[in-house]
């Protein structure tokens, strides 16, 4: 069993891999012309082209950051193709054409048959056709007044909203990868929830037609007007292969007065093989601003994939009484490296933030928590509680904690604690002697360790995520 999984995980970029250059692809490399061409193809308004060009000018002056606790070969930015038209994946007639090992993984994760078909691009019967599912969803959303579409569509249909909020949370000057993304972003999701509306369903990238292939430079913008609520799911538990090695996405969230945004991510991209060859570089800038009073932004992430992860979903707590939350499980195995955490910047009065981070390292991987809690002078009565727990599996991996705390208001309270532990032989023995096999035992121990985070995930995600961690750790203990 586990060898099957290993084989499966070792498959390099099988899905959608083509070596011949697509008709609609640019030559590798980046200059002003590239950016003008991207913008022209998308028929973008002037403000967006200006935004891209300014970002590019700024990016040229920046250096790739090296402060994170990861080491990797820096990508060559002249070898990257910055635009290629969305590709039509070859359709399969039935699930029989799919590698049985992959299906087995799906089985274990408990992914429903219809979703399996979608993930593998199998033609599905009319009722469950992804297009029609999506259409139904779109109708419901439209009735509620929620806009959920691609960024490209949004630029066309609602340019004034895009212009107002794009880059307002993550300016193009923010960091090296955010600048690059701002210059060349391909597409992404756009969500707008009008005043007082609670989105009638959880929005998921699953159901956005034609964009199941995560772009290399994705850009997501979610705006919640006064008193509205949305829960957004990104990614999925199923392993994802991708031909792009570098992923530099930007996610911006804006919550106005009394609004709430819940953003959940499960990331299981290709992590490279057991020897650390290949794998995705996941360099993401995610930030939300609680602009209005009493607003709330909650990030939940389960990070299990990618060779190198560099990701700090953050909250700027501007509005009084606003709340920021960060719940994270980061698992690294083999040669994976993750440097992830959050920033909570308290600006408004009585703002509150909670950070729960669970890091699990196995194999020879390195797992770092890096976080910042900042209490500005105006953050009267603000509170933060942080808990960072690490679990080490095996004695060749590393767990690191880098919590930065910066307090400039005496009435603010900050508490931080961190601990490390492991799956002990005695614990395993206890499970085994009660007839519970290794796989289930690990899964249960990890579930217990990550309980606080899984609680925050939407139901189906939580069930799958729990199983996913078990699968990822198979063969690591004992």
């Amino acid at each position, binding site marked *: 069993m586990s060898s099957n999984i290993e084989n499966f995980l070792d498959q390099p970029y099988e899905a959608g891999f083509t070596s011949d250059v697509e008709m609609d692809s640019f030559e590798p490399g980046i200059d002003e012309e590239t950016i003008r061409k991207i913008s022209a193809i998308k028929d973008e308004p002037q403000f967006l082209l200006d935004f891209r060009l300014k970002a590019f000018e700024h990016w040229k002056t920046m250096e790739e950051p090296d*402060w994170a606790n990861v080491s990797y070969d820096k990508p060559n930015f002249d070898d990257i193709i910055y635009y290629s038209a969305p590709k039509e994946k070859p359709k399969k007639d039935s699930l029989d054409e799919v590698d049985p090992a992959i299906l087995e993984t799906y089985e274990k994760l408990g992914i429903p048959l219809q979703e399996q078909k979608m993930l593998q691009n199998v033609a599905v019967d009319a009722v469950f056709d992804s297009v029609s599912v999506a259409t139904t969803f779109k109708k419901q959303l439209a009735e509620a007044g929620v806009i959920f579409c691609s960024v490209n569509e949004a630029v066309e249909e609602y340019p004034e909203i895009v212009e107002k909020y794009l880059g307002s949370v993550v300016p193009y000057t923010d960091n090296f990868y955010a600048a690059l993304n701002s210059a060349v972003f391909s597409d992404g999701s756009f969500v707008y929830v009008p005043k007082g509306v609670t989105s009638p369903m959880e929005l998921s990238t699953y159901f956005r037609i034609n964009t199941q292939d995560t772009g290399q430079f994705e850009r997501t913008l979610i705006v919640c007007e006064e008193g509205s609520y949305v829960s957004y799911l990104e990614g999925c538990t199923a392993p994802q292969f991708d031909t792009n090695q570098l992923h530099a996405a930007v996610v911006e969230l804006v919550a106005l007065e009394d609004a709430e945004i819940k953003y959940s991510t499960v990331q299981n991209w290709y992590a490279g093989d057991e020897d650390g060859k290949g794998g995705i570089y996941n360099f993401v800038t995610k930030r939300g601003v609680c602009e209005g009073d009493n607003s709330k932004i909650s990030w939940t992430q389960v990070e299990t994939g990618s060779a190198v992860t560099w990701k700090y979903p953050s909250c700027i707590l501007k509005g009084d009484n606003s709340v920021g939350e960060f719940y994270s499980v980061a698992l690294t195995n083999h040669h994976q490296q993750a440097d992830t955490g959050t920033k909570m910047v308290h600006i408004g009065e009585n703002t509150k933030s909670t950070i729960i981070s669970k890091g699990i390292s196995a194999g020879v991987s390195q797992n770092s928590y890096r976080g910042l809690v900042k*209490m500005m*002078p105006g953050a009267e009565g603000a509170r933060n509680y942080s808990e960072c727990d*690490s679990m*080490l*599996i*095996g*004695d*060749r*991996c*590393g*767990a*690191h*904690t*880098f*919590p*930065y*705390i*910066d*307090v*400039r*208001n*005496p*009435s*603010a*309270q*900050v*508490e*931080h*604690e*961190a*601990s*490390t*532990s*492991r799956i002990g032989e005695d614990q395993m023995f206890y499970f085994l002697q009660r007839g519970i096999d290794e796989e289930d035992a690990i899964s249960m121990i990890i579930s217990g360790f990550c309980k606080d985070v899984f609680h925050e995930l939407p139901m189906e995600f939580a069930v799958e995520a729990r199983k996913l961690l078990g699968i990822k750790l198979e063969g690591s203990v004992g």
Partner: protein
Amino acid sequence: MSLAEKKQETMARHPFIAQFIDHSNSRDADGLPQWWSESRTDALQRLVTLDVPGPKDEEWKFLNLKSLYNATYLSEGAAATEADEAFVKERSIPEAKAATLVFSNGRFKPAASNVDGLGEGVRVTSWSELREAGDLDAVRDHVGIADFWEDDLFYNLNGANFEDGAVILVPRETVVEVPIHLLYVSDGSGERFAAHPRNVIVAGENAEVTVIEEYATSVDGEYFHNVVDEISLGANAEVRHVKVQRDSKEAQHVARNIITLESNSNYEATAVNLGAAFSRNDSYARFDGSSIECTLDGLVYIGGTQVSDTHTAIDHALPDSTSYQLQKVIVDDRAHSIFNGKIFVREDAQRIDSNQLNQNLLLSRRARVNTKPQLEIFADDVVCSHGATVGQLQDDQLFYLMTRGMDEERARSLLTYAFAAEVLEDIEVDSLRTRLEGLLMEQTTRN
């Protein structure tokens, strides 16, 4: 590029560094043993390649050191004064009467010092005395004991310039019954000077010693203390080290403490930082054996525009050891405290028990605290935890005291005192502990 050219270049870039290269070159090299002049040359060679650290360097984040870097300093030799007798008397510690070394503006003052009857083979002396006696080889093996700060500017400034400081050598199987008091008195009335004390503390196998290292100022003023302590513990040795930094509030104090520990040894340090406009204290403890116990406690209590920065690194290189750390910080007015506590557990250093707690109390709206407790763990069978808190006094605690009839002001000062006093509890030298507690009480009531 020749050394001279490099120096020219450094001079242009960093007059701060260049002046200390000049100081070093003008120092008396007569009769210096070869190993010492070689280490001086090494330090000089590194200095010309170094930059002054600033906020862009991770280890120097949050600091603005312009007032340190922009000043010019006299070499301590040119600022020599005699120690103020009355002042020395006032600061003397009765328990350490027979073991006191007094330094004035960084230079050893034999007349003000007293070392008597400490036991056979115990040496409590200074570099200058050893040099005069032609006995420098006694200390040779105990300097440059770890290369942790090889590229550190201040460590190398000290390396190129140190001429004096305490040398405490306790041979094996020897217990020094009385505490040893190192009293660094500074007189800031003259021109601004820089002193680079190098203190060496060596405890042989099964040896035991208590050292009190104190920095005090008889006349306030601007000066710059750049200290390096090298502390070695042999197997089963025990060293208790109390550092009290009460330099002038106009002065700058930078210190690097290197501690190397052999099996079953026990090192207990308490660092109390009250003085200096800017103080920076770094400690690095390297575990070279197993079953070692190491405690690095600290108390920082600052106000005005004082800045105090403490960085510690506990390096568990081998298995089966324990470390504790309690760092308490009180910041008042516009003061700013920074703490970074690193705990490393290297590969295969199993069964490590490491515990760190950093608590910060803000007394004023304009005070600031930065803290970064940091764990870096490469072994799985360990129990490591750290905690950090920042805040003000708890309302319910205040309320409780006030229900007992105490007014708010009194309740606040009592709670502040209690917060800080926990660190002082472990100081075993009674008169010193009482004195520090009194000082603390005075400071908390004043607020």
